[in-house]
């Protein structure tokens, strides 16, 4: 495709790393006026990172950014992006819930001020809402906290398209239809086409393939922080999009002969996801590793919490390995040993008090078992690297007597070496008869699971034993073919 005008924004060789993880590498991409560019990829492919760099909330480590024809390097930031008419509707809502719809617009646009600013703000947001979502039923005076989530999303989108004395060139829509119903989503996509036809530019990220193919002019497919394919949308089909997202040349993993552990036994856990409409349940049998797959945030963590609640009310217990270490995992002020033994205190008691010797012994045993790298288990947990903290959390779960271990995407941001060590320990423990339910956002980790459930929109949409596992099938089910 050729474009008569110079590109609005061009990335050349853009790269970004978070610690050891390369989120973006060698990205070359340009954004043009009058074009809707689609961006698609599985979890962690780098879509959101790339958009944050474009919106100026993150700065790239290397590479060059051209705005119109001018080269910008380090000085690029949010203000500059706004001056050049680049706006972003992020997935997490960025409205102030205590303010009204019109007041939230004022927050975004410092140009609205002086006498009569309230009337001006109301008129502007009303006009934008009417334009994009006719019949929206939102009043400019409504307090945002009192609106349901879908309407908040509509306000957020309408706000990004309001123009007061400033340029408006490019709007990034990151999963804009995720909380909109089908009719409203259609209104939005229709508006995107009109906006683009009027010379605007839109970047659309969505997991609904039909939506992407129907709305975008070009689609860029990302994988592992790179753009692997970029073509006019007409040259793609559902099948070819899914194929591009998967890793093309995947080395055959040495698979042991798969033996199902399900023959003739009752399940340890059987739980229907809260939003499941048909009778599908997630089952786990003794000694099994059950994987929960799908795009992030589609109900996998909620299922783990459901299982945990149920086990606790029945008095059976279960151990949870948290993925978000800082909020759900570590006790930041405690030592490594205390962080490990907290779930086994009942076993460490002598009389009414905790036996310090037994505590130290248990900590030492698990240090050796997991290979936690520290000179002294009495050091504070925060003295460990991220990977070793995660090992301590695994040790906490495995040291307890629970037969069921729930894992909430525990390998986020962990280096490859640590991952390998932990995988082998999980396999050993499963062989001893423990049951694992493992939510993971990384496709490779599913190779370690005996049985896989793929989630979409809070429901199980695919149920596979390992011998039938194929990456393509998982991707196809994670991305919706048709809008719901």
């Amino acid at each position: 495709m050729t474009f008569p005008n110079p590109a609005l924004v061009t990335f050349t060789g853009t790269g970004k790393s978070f610690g050891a993880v390369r989120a973006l590498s060698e990205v070359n991409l340009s954004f043009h006026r009058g074009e809707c560019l689609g961006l698609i990829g599985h979890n962690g492919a780098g879509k959101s990172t790339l958009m944050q760099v474009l919106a100026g909330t993150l700065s790239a480590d290397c590479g060059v950014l051209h705005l119109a024809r001018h080269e910008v390097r380090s000085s690029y930031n949010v203000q500059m992006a706004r001056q050049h008419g680049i706006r972003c509707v992020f997935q997490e809502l960025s409205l102030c819930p205590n303010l009204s719809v019109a007041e939230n617009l004022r927050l975004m646009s410092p140009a609205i001020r002086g006498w009569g600013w309230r009337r001006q703000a109301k008129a502007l947001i009303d006009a934008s809402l009417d334009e994009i979502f006719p019949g929206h039923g939102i009043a400019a005076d409504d307090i945002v906290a009192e609106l349901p989530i879908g309407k908040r999303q509509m306000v957020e989108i309408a706000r990004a398209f309001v123009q007061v004395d400033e340029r408006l060139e490019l709007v990034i829509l990151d999963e804009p239809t995720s909380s909109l119903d089908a009719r409203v989503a259609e209104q939005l996509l229709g508006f995107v086409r009109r906006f683009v036809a009027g010379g605007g530019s839109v970047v659309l990220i969505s997991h609904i393939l039909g939506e992407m193919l129907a709305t975008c002019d070009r689609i860029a497919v990302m994988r592992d922080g790179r753009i692997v394919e970029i073509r006019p949308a007409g040259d793609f089909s559902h099948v070819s999009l899914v194929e591009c997202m998967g890793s093309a040349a995947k080395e055959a993993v040495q698979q042991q002969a798969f033996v199902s552990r399900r023959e003739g036994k009752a399940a340890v856990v059987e739980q229907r996801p809260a939003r499941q409409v048909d009778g599908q349940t997630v089952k786990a049998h003794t000694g099994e590793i059950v994987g929960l797959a799908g795009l992030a945030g589609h109900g996998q963590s909620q299922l783990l919490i459901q299982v945990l609640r149920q086990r606790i009310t029945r008095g059976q217990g279960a151990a949870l390995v948290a993925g978000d270490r800082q909020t759900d995992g570590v006790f930041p002020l405690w030592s490594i040993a205390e962080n490990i033994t907290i779930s086994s205190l009942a076993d460490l008691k002598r009389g009414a008090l905790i036996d310090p010797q037994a505590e130290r012994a248990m900590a030492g045993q698990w240090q050796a078992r997991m290979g936690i790298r520290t000179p002294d288990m009495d050091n504070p947990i925060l003295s460990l690297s991220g990977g070793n903290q995660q090992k301590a959390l695994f040790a906490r779960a495995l040291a307890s007597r629970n037969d069921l271990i729930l894992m909430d995407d525990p390998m986020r941001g962990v280096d490859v070496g640590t991952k390998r060590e932990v995988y082998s320990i999980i396999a050993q423990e499963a062989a001893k008869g423990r049951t694992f339910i493992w939510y993971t956002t990384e496709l490779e980790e599913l190779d370690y699971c005996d049985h896989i459930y793929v989630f979409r929109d809070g429901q199980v949409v695919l149920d596979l034993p390992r011998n039938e596992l194929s990456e393509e099938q998982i991707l196809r089910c994670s991305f919706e073919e048709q809008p719901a």
Partner: protein
Amino acid sequence: MNPSLSLSAQALKKPQINRARLLRSALPGLSLALLLVAIFIIQPRAISYMGMNLMLNLAVPIALATIAQMLIITVNDLDLSLGSFISFVACVAATLLNEHPLLGCLALLACIAVYALIGALIHTRNLPSIVVTLGMSFIWMGGAVLLLPAPGGSAPHWLQSLVRIKTPWLPFAIIVCIVLALLVHAFLMRSPLGVVLRGAGGNPLAVAKAGWSLLRIKVSLYALAGSFGVLAGLFLVGLTTSADATIALRYTLLSIAGVILGGGEFVGGRVSPIGAVLGALTLVLAGSLLSFMRISPDWQIGAQGAILILVLALRAAVNRLETRPL
């Protein structure tokens, strides 16, 4: 979904939400009216120019303190030093301001600057406001004791005559409260700047992403709170004519109670200046009502607490009404 069906569902839902919101914002006014009726039934003579003047005499400094506290609560913080700060200001006014007016004015301006600095400190070091202001409360109290080791001093004459202005029709205290409530309401709830200040309490991250400086927001709110604290101290010492290092200690808790009674919430930037002033008046009149009922002062604090719990329970009930139809 059938579009006409969804439309009629919306039409049904809307007025109900608004009614709950209306009820919640009317609650502070209703509780105040209820109190006034009760006072009128027990002691009809109290509802007169003279009576109101006597009852509401000390209401103005409490209302000012409540506004100061509300400004801090707007950004999800809490000021535990407000009472000792107002005591300190009263001591400055009864000593320095009387003897060396210029020096006194400078000292009061410095007080406001200290408040702004505290705001900056809390923001940049990410400290809990409760801890910082609790520490500050001892510093203010120590300063007050240094200035006035024993009760005494004398308020400047101009200040004494200023707070005793006789106004026709309505007592001065009521007029001051109305003006105060309307001014702060116009600034915080209606001005474009006020929107940003409240937004910083609702979703600080979004406000920062939109390009506003959270540091400047916090510093301005703390400085404003300090200014209202200074006004409260001046007004108080004008009424009492002499000061004491512990004169306003109970204002800390009274001001917090006033904000909450007035419909404010501890987190989320949900505050109401008119409600806060009404809340302060309610607390003051509750004290009068209890004396009219011949309840001994020993029990009055407990009874005030009971009134607070009653109003908050009512509000919880209204909030429930609001969430149920959704």
